[in-house]
């Protein structure tokens, strides 16, 4: 056997700050030039997620219907133009934000931005398209809710925040029937404004691209920012069990309400979550999959919202071993609280977390994604280096202290569907 070649290199992780361009309408544009690539991606983000809606599904419908017709172009023309130039348009709505991205070849930047202008600034939400959308989405949601995993995700949000909380809401499929064109137009006007979002662009950005980006984004209306809605108090349920006819697997979610990313213990709790279920050889994976064969996979992670954050564990196990699997998950949590982990295991977790960061930051689009997260926390990209240092300096005692403090059995929320 040759000598083991592990050198265990711990590379420095540094990303340049984005250049901030403040436009006259108040829009903020962050630039991350990487000129060796022949591609560019523009992402706009608005505080227009589902927690801002007063009518069910209106936030996601507004975002998803942006490309379905504008003042100067039909839905067909929009998709023709994007497809012809090999450009990608993508929207994603979460509880807090909507993310709108255009990825394009550098040689087709002007053509793609012309389409972007139409659907960002002049969408018309045609009645007919709204109708088709209602129909299709209703059917899709029905199918989604046949999956134990989807039902568990929804039940977990309700149990964690309360069924009436904007972070806990889930709605009947029939609510799609109430969705009107007028509501979408109103939601769009209120939330898709210069003062309610920002934009991040990465890839090849020369003078031409810069000018084109500014010209586009300067046209967003400078309306007053939509007021931040009041949230009702959080109302938790500790344990929820839902039956699912014909299920051969149960979906399990266990979590603990904690704090958003700005909290000083957030990074520490990321280390706790990673130790439990953040990688292939994690404690839960070793136990549930490698030792017992209860599951194909289990994960745990810190989840971050604008105003809250929580730790969650998720897995699907054979229905016949549901109780055993729950027992083992609680056991692993308790073990982390009562035993100090070895230096070797912690070193492993640290290396995995920093390696993961390097992988996310590989390529111009990944750098843009991380930059967006940092902006949302009000930080520059220097926070990446700080967070990596924080991870590298944490001690086994500290991990135990955090687990002890934040993962008490009586504070956990457990949801089982199956």
């Amino acid at each position, binding site marked *: 056997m040759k000598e083991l070649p592990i050198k265990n290199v711990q590379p420095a992780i540094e990303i340049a700050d984005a250049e901030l361009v403040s436009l006259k309408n108040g829009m903020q544009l962050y630039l991350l030039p990487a000129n060796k690539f022949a591609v560019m991606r523009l992402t706009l983000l608005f505080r227009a997620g589902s927690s801002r809606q007063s009518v069910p599904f209106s936030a996601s419908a507004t975002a998803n219907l942006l490309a379905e017709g504008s003042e100067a172009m039909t839905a067909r023309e929009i998709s023709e133009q994007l497809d012809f130039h090999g450009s*990608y348009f993508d929207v994603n709505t979460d509880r807090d934000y909507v993310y709108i991205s255009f990825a394009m*070849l550098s040689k087709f930047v002007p053509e793609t931005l012309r389409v972007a202008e139409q659907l960002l600034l002049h969408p018309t939400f045609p009645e007919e398209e709204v109708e088709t959308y209602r129909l299709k989405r209703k059917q899709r949601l029905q*199918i989604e809710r046949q999956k134990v995993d989807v039902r568990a995700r929804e039940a977990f949000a309700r149990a964690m925040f309360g069924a009436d909380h904007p972070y806990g809401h889930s709605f009947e499929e029939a609510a799609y029937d109430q969705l009107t064109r007028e509501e979408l137009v109103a939601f769009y006007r209120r939330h898709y404004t210069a003062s309610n979002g920002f934009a991040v662009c990465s890839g090849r950005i020369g003078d031409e691209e810069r000018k084109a980006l500014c010209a586009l984004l300067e046209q967003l209306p400078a309306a007053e920012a939509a007021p931040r809605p009041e949230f009702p108090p959080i109302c938790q349920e500790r344990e929820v069990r839902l039956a699912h006819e014909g299920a051969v697997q149960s979906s399990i979610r266990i979590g603990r309400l904690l704090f958003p990313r700005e909290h000083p213990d957030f990074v520490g709790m990321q280390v706790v979550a990673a130790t439990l279920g953040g990688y292939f050889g994690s404690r839960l994976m070793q136990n549930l999959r490698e030792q017992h064969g209860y599951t194909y996979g289990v994960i745990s992670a810190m989840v971050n919202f604008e105003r809250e954050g929580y730790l969650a564990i998720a897995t699907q196990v054979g229905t016949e071993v549901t109780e055993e699997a729950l027992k083992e998950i609680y056991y692993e949590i308790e073990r982390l609280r009562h035993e100090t982990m070895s230096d070797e295991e912690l070193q492993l977790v640290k290396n*995995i977390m920093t390696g993961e960061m390097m992988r996310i930051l590989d390529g111009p689009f990944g750098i843009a994604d991380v930059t967006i997260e940092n902006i949302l926390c009000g930080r520059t990209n220097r926070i990446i280096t700080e967070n990596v240092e924080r991870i590298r300096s944490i001690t086994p005692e500290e991990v135990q202290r955090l687990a002890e403090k934040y993962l008490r059995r009586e504070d956990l929320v457990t949801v089982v569907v199956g």
Partner: protein
Amino acid sequence: MIPYKKRILENGLTVVVNRDRSSKLSAVNLLYKVGARNEDPDRTGFAHLFEHLMFRGTCDVPSFDLPVQMASGEDNAFTNNDYTNFYLTLPVDNLETALWLESDRMQGLWITPEKLETEKRVVVEEFRQRYLNQPYGDQTMLLRALAYRIHPYRWATIGRSTDHIEGATLDEVEHFYRTFYRPSNAVLALSADRDEEAMLDLAEKWFGELQDTPFTPAPIPQEPQQEEARTLVVERDVPATTISIAYHMGDRLSKDFCTGDLVSDLLSGGDSSRLYQHLVKDERLFASVNAYISGDVDPGLFILTGQLLPTTTEEQAIEAFHRETESLKHEAASAYELEKVKNKFEANALFGELNVMNKAMNLCYYDFLGDLELINREIAQYRSIDTERIFEFARRIFRAENSSTLIYRAR
């Protein structure tokens, strides 16, 4: 354009390397030329089960993942009908760790009865999670079994039933390992910011001493020409009926591949495509539609599939698909439309070259196909497709007696 260098070691291992000057990561991909098509019909799902076992430790390295993770790396694998693929990314300075580990498990695997039993349970759970506990989970399995009668493509990579996985024995594991996991049955690719010759030498250092025992694989039974239309109707507890139609087409290296791929893009590549515009938007027959090719190495399938809206009858849906395939036989696609799907292919190729892992994976795959050069020639092949080729393809492929229709009916 992906530049590369290639070397075949004395033991038969093919090594391909690419220098990527922009990444701080390195990618290592190792492809074994064995997939579900090499399986015994009574032991299906075995190639995939074996892929799982490759992570169960060797005589010298009890855990594969541990040293990878210590080196800030990440690894995974997949199996399909044609091949089994293992891949890692890690900081470029730790590249050698990956070579050490991959060379070690090419011959040193150590599987105990206990390890085998646990892994079988994991794979059975995977089977349940992906195929049994999902609405429409068994749809592609049913379609394969309908379209193929002889060829092993008639079963999915996961296998025909959980019984096949549960019945796997240690003897079978050892035999499979010796037969297929050998230098001359594998392709290794690296992509990193390192000198190409130096990377080839590194591969030589770690893999050069491994022994190879050549063998002749059992021939894969080929599918005879289909003579008559086939239809299968199943009823399931799902909210909406779906209909899929599969047509036999040529193999991966035939002209059919690019033409079929391009035709599938005409039909369903993006929201401006024909099926979406005609059948989802204009006629409102379907909630969603798709057209794609299976892309297998041996002669594959061209598949149309759609989920019906509640107001659509099965006859209407099948008739609508028929109209679209007929039109491909007689009406020439416009120059504009052809340019669109070709641009799209080119853009996808460029977006795919942004990271090291994709490149290493593709280098292995094209070499496995037997035509590594194709990796940089395929765009030109797409560019050369004209309306005559599309007519010829459509007339030969989209015939009723070449079709298998699966009606997956909502109960």
